[in-house]
């Protein structure tokens, strides 16, 4: 596998992209608490999504020619990549459906949620994406140790996000009266939408965490190398996809529209 970048250049790019994403997230939050313009929030989310898809998920690799021997690892990786992206496309429709439900049921209103916590979990997930990118870059340059350390950090942050949403945020939402009680969402559409969107996303975070554990464990056994690490790439792309979904869900739940209840 040929490298277009040295490892330190790739790391540097990760830092720059992360800074962009962090600034955009801060901008989002600022816009939401000051003059709440939905159009700006949508534009910012789309820019963030594009950055993640290009620099973290490397969508351009779909286009990289991998002609030649059909039985080579590279050719198969190219095939696998298309398969994975098609799966993500399909999965994106689930989340698009949930967004549709949210817009249809809640319109330009939003539930009363803890803004600090929302921003905190969003930041945690974004930082986890940064470390995931670092981990994948390390593996692509044959640095197994670097991969394992960065993936472990990603895992811990991901777990933090999951617990932050499911244990803390769901409990707080119940206290706000969004749901009947913690773990019992038997109320109107606002609570239903909130539980369903965060729940479906949390389910994907959970599967992503399992995926991370699997590749971490396989890396420990020495399954991956600089040339052959499709499993690592797939886990990383899936993890970034989970972040990508949250880029849209975070403003949809926390930022856009008028506060009610």
């Amino acid at each position, binding site marked *: 596998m040929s490298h277009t970048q040295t490892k330190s250049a790739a790391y540097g790019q990760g830092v720059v992209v992360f800074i962009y994403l962090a600034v955009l997230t801060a901008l989002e939050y600022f816009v939401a608490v000051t003059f709440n313009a939905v159009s700006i929030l949508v534009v910012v989310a789309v820019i963030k999504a594009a950055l993640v898809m290009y620099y973290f998920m490397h969508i351009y690799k779909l286009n990289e020619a991998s002609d030649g021997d*059909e039985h080579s690892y590279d050719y198969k990786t190219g095939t696998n990549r298309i*398969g994975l992206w098609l799966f993500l496309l*399909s999965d994106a429709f689930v989340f698009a459906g949930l967004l*549709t*439900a949210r817009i249809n049921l809640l319109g330009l209103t939003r539930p009363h949620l803890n803004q600090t916590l929302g921003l905190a979990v969003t930041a945690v997930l974004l930082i986890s994406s940064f470390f995931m990118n670092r981990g994948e870059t390390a593996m692509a340059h044959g640095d197994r140790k670097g991969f394992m350390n960065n993936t472990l950090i990603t895992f811990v942050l991901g777990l933090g996000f999951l617990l932050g949403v499911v244990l803390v945020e769901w409990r707080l939402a119940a206290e706000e009266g969004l749901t009947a009680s913690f773990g019992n*969402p*038997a109320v109107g559409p*606002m*609570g*239903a939408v909130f539980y369903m969107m965060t729940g479906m996303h949390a389910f994907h975070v959970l599967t992503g965490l399992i995926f991370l554990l699997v590749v971490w464990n396989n890396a420990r056994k020495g399954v991956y190398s600089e040339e052959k690490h499709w499993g690592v790439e797939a886990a990383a792309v899936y993890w970034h996809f989970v972040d990508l979904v949250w880029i849209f869900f975070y403003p949809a739940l926390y930022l856009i529209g008028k506060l009610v209840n």
Partner: protein
Amino acid sequence: MKRFISSALAHGLGWQLIGTLLGAGLITGIRALMGLSVTDRFFFTEPAWVLGGFIGAISFLFGSGVTSDWMKWARGIDTPEHHEDHHSGWEKYVNVSLDHKVIGIQYTIVALALISIGGLFALIFRTELAASQLQFLTTDMKLFGQNGPQLYNTLMSLHGMIMIVSILLGISGIINYVVPLLLGAQDMAFPRLNAFSFWIAVPGAVLLLSSLFLGGFDTGWTGYPPLSARAPVGMQMFFLGVFVAGWSSILGALNVIVTVLRMRAKGMTAMRMPIFVWAAIATSLIALTATQFIGLSFQLVMFQRLFGMGFFDPAKGGNPVLFQHLFWFYSHPAVYVFILPGLGVISELLPVFVRKPLFGYRWIAMSSLGIALVGFVVWAHHMFTSGMNEYLRVPFMYSTLLVAIPTGVKFFSWVATIWNGKITTPTPMLFVLGGIVVFLMGGLSGPPNAIVSTDLHLHDTYFIVGHFHDTIFGGFVFPFFAALYYWFPKATGRRMNETLGKLHFWLMTPAFFVLTFGMMYIGLLGMRRRIVDYDPALGIDSTHLVLTIAGYLIGLSVVIFIYNFFNSIKNGEKAEGNVWNSRSPEWQVPSPMPVHNYDQPFEVISEPYDYGLEGGSPYVKFSEPESGKHQ
């Protein structure tokens, strides 16, 4: 029997039962600890059945062994690229195989089984409808905890969804068997995922059928809330079954797209692909994406029932119309999932039997994509009477009428292809021609439903029932039979009996016309859909009787087909060569197809459908075997 018990199918079903009991037992135990009720009308409570059904489906997959390679990968163990089949004869088809040809046949057999079950249900309620008043599905009778009219509702609803699942499996069967052969590939891009896509449909079908025994449901196949939010527990099994079977469709579609993108033979550019491959791509694009919406909509109703989440509950501020939007966003494009492969089969076979080039290849290829894309923006034409915002009606009316353009392109091409051709009419060709005519009837009866002013009167009448049976028979059933008759020799090395095949066709086609035209006729006279009884004053008793007889004739013709199908596997006339004199690559090698498809790779050197041209070159050229190379 012993060999069946040790098969993947038997193991899977056994584990599904165990998993269901474990899952249901778990919830029952938790409920007991929480001091909630632990039993209900159907022994377990609804949450217990739902988790049980879900765990059962997963247990099936692990039990059948279709996931074992992936589990090894997760532990860092590599598995060989190609598995040799250890089984022979019928055992191949009840065990996990990674061979796309075996999987294609597995799909087809399950599709035929489901078509028979769905058809049987139709005959039962068709018999009840033969005369007004309640005949045998009376309010006094009790079966599976349902009285007669309730059972009618369940059978009518299940008829719809079982047929839909059987169609999805049927097209997967044809696509799986044929597409890699047409492309010159050894297999699908992801053979394990391919096997998984098939096997996940089996527990899905079991779940779907189990709804009959758990109180049934009375919503029709659409499962609209609020009715579906309070139907018996069978409703949940229906939702779960569709959700599980949906994954089969999604993952199968993913595999098809990747296979076509990555595994074409040398020289097979996009515009030299067999036309059926274009249809497979178009149908897969819809199945891959839109299917998630029906899964989601059903999931939301499941959660509304289980947790009281008020998505579609107006009392809590929810919106039932939202369900219809989510549901039809899949379920309308789904009909294009059903018909596009069928129309592809028609375009694929027509040139073979008229010995002329396919007219307007590029237009046909693009029209498949056009139908798929337009299909995404027409869904609300099912909702003209639903109370959705009125300004949506007119745009959806026009987008729906727009479908006629790419479909018209296909008809134009077929007619131009037949024009001045040297037509021969063996059984597959009969079904191709039948499909064209029937689909035309479906197409012509479509615009009255698309136009708001007429649809407001036609909505929920038998006119609609007649219309969509025409489209589905013309777009799927006839081409499906054509494909089975056509590729049967490829799969088995034997031909199906011509006489029985012709009998099948000449019995089914007129009966079918009587059935659907009759349906449209009584629909115009005021016969409502999905109802166990009708007013004798409508004066349609005699028509209903005729429809019932026609229904039985179709049933009889399918019985003849199934006999012919299974009998010909053993006793059919041998047909090992190019039976239809086709240019397509799969017919240039002996039948039945060798395990790893083509011994020698081929290169595409000409157009696929240049039939009957003087001095024309063949479509493909096989490379010479290298001397001394072990085959």
